[in-house]
């Protein structure tokens, strides 16, 4: 039997709020520092966090002052350390992007506008904690002490690339810092991180695992596997959805029809919190809270890190084709570096002069690291890793069929 057509029916296709040529006007946030209480992380239930999932944890106010129950009361030295890492990441990214534009790197991805995410969150952890990142959290490596030269060597893919030219730039692996190898398929790390955490739990070790996923990748099955396994097995894991509004050209409206991502953790029984991802203090405090909860054996926390991807997805992307080019300047969360800088100035622990001094020093640091890195080979002329690296570490020991192919290459 044929169905009748119905008036007013049709596919519902969402859209981004603003498109090129339009003026981006974001609603002003109604949430202020001090709005939300800080429940006891070792005792509270998922239900107790409903207001936190629907609201927004903030510490830094529009007046650049810190306030409210979530103020982590960091020392000026700790704040300056956070600022320095964020400035380092931004200058590093800018330099690497220039290198990409002049053909010295094949590809690059900046963390522009999201520098706070990995840096504040990694600083809130213990050094034995596992970091399971995506391509937008390389900043965690600075916190864990990775040498910048080695990071650049990876991005070039030269002979000193610790992963031997096998992956695209920005797909870092840094075992010494418990920073787990980045993979291109988006979302896979989220559910894997739950396994890392379950192993810590099984071994009864004081270790927590942190992982991130984008708003876009939260539509992958791996996101839901992660929430479910984390909840069922009470895994000591911190699950962050970095809602930076954009997945290449796909707006978050295509990832969910809900107003927020944080609340998705609630039906899984997870403590769920939304936090201003450009507010260093709030992000630090929420992560510390989640760590305390995980370490107490109460279980995982699901965090929506609300931010904005100020730059392009990657060096291959041109966001002016799908969003207003000044949209990021209208973001209610502002710029994470400026906000922490202004807070430090507000409390009398920093100045414009010290800021420019810091930027100059890091500029030099990045330039000299780059010069050092290219001594080990540049993209245009090498030297690159030897072709034998195609065949090694595919297995622990090379099986005969691979050995034959290896010999074929080596004999030229």
């Amino acid at each position, binding site marked *: 039997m044929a169905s009748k057509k119905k008036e007013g029916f049709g596919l519902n296709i969402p859209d981004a709020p603003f498109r090129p040529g339009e003026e981006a006007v974001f609603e002003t946030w109604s949430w202020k520092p001090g709005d939300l209480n800080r429940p006891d992380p070792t005792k509270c239930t998922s239900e107790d966090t409903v207001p936190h999932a629907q609201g927004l944890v903030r510490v830094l106010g529009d007046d650049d002052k810190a306030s409210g129950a979530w103020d982590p009361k960091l020392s000026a030295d700790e704040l300056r350390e956070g600022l320095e890492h964020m400035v380092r990441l931004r200058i590093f990214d800018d330099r690497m992007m220039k290198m990409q534009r002049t053909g010295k790197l094949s590809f690059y991805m900046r963390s522009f506008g999201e520098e706070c995410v990995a840096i504040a969150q990694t600083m809130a952890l213990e050094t034995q904690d596992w970091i399971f990142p995506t391509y937008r959290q390389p900043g965690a490596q600075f916190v864990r002490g990775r040498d910048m030269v080695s990071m650049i060597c990876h991005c070039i893919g030269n002979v000193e690339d610790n*992963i031997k030219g096998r992956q695209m730039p920005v797909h870092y692996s840094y075992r010494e810092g418990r920073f787990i190898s980045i993979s291109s398929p988006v979302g896979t790390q989220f*559910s894997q991180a739950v396994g890392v955490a379950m192993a810590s739990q099984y*071994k009864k070790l004081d270790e927590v695992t942190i992982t991130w996923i984008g708003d876009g990748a939260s539509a992958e099955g791996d996101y839901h*596997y*992660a929430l479910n*396994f984390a909840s069922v097995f009470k895994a000591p894991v911190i699950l962050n959805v970095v809602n930076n509004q954009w997945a290449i050209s796909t707006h978050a409206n295509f990832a969910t029809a809900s107003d927020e991502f944080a609340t998705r953790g609630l039906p899984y029984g997870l403590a769920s919190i939304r936090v201003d991802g450009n507010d260093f203090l709030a992000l630090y405090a929420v992560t510390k809270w989640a760590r305390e909860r995980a370490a107490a054996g109460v279980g995982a926390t699901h965090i929506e890190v609300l931010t904005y991807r100020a730059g392009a997805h990657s060096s291959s992307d041109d966001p002016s084709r799908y969003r207003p080019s000044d949209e990021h300047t209208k973001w209610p969360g502002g710029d994470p570096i400026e906000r922490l800088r202004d807070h430090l100035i507000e409390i009398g622990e920093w100045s414009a002069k010290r800021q420019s001094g810091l930027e100059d020093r890091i500029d030099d640091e990045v330039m000299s690291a780059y010069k050092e890195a290219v001594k080990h080979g540049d993209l245009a002329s090498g030297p690159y890793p030897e072709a034998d690296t195609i065949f090694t570490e595919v*297995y622990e020991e090379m099986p005969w069929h691979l050995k034959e192919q290896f010999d074929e290459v080596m004999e030229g």
Partner: protein
Amino acid sequence: MANMNMIQSLNNALDIMLDRDDDVIVYGEDVGYFGGVFRTTDGLQAKHGAHRVFDTPLSEGGILATAFGMGINGLRPVVEIQFADYIFPAYDQIVNELAKIRHRSGGEYWSPVTVRTPAGGGIRGGHHHSQSPESQFTHTPGLKVVYCSTPYNAKGLLISAVECNDPVIFFEPKRCYRGPFYGDPHNVPTWEGHPEAEVPESHYTVPLGEARLAMEGDECTVIAWGAMVHVSEQAIRDSGISCDLIDLQTLVPWDRDAVVNSIEKTGRCVIVHEAPKTSGFGAEMAASVQERCFYHLESPIQRVTGWDAPFPHTTEWDYMPGPTRIAAAIRRTQEG
């Protein structure tokens, strides 16, 4: 020595590895309290504790993802995918993640996961309890692929897989769990009295990458794995032709020397597998055999396989290679 069926020998292998290595952890759907839908993990939770042998959500992707993470963090997970047909939600985790982690991280990380999965037809399982998807994994560098066929090799291969620091996809021919299968669904014997069901109770290994000579002859070489080893044995007897029967046991890396040596002797070759013909692992073997043995071959290589169609329910005996089809192929190799 004890007479064990394949369920018992696999259970025994897991029991031994759980005893020997605290890093071994066994989980999957229905694996824990109940002991598995095929009973392979029966009693292991009671003996080793629920923290070492446990049930999971019905989430193959989640099972593989967490196993990957546990492997990264020093454990040696042995997970079960209840039927090989259901492995595909985990395919990305296996192919893009598990298989590549050692290489992609420059050797900084690896994850020694063993994925056990019952495969193959003959139990009236229709489309989705019967497939034999080994070639979906043999095409992925970084994985080892094993297909056991008897209680003895099941235990020894499983112990090797668990001890291996590379990820292993371990196929178990479910049709042979409780007895060797000779291709006659109306007459399925148990493993009782079968020499390959005499299994040492202690730890032993069957090395990965080595084939087993199941029958010895000089007129033709028949290569098979899983349930097809026993069906081929019947076919060889029916054909009256003297054959080497090579039970491949490991598909990646496969034992090319054993195959080449045999074909250099017999000059004839039949490859048998349950999986569909096109891009089946038999195609890889046939190509390799002609590279190595072209001048020893007296007749074209024959492939006897499942058809390039979905696995059927009531007509499964028309789909799976049986002794008649295999014997006919063996005879064809003797022509000319």
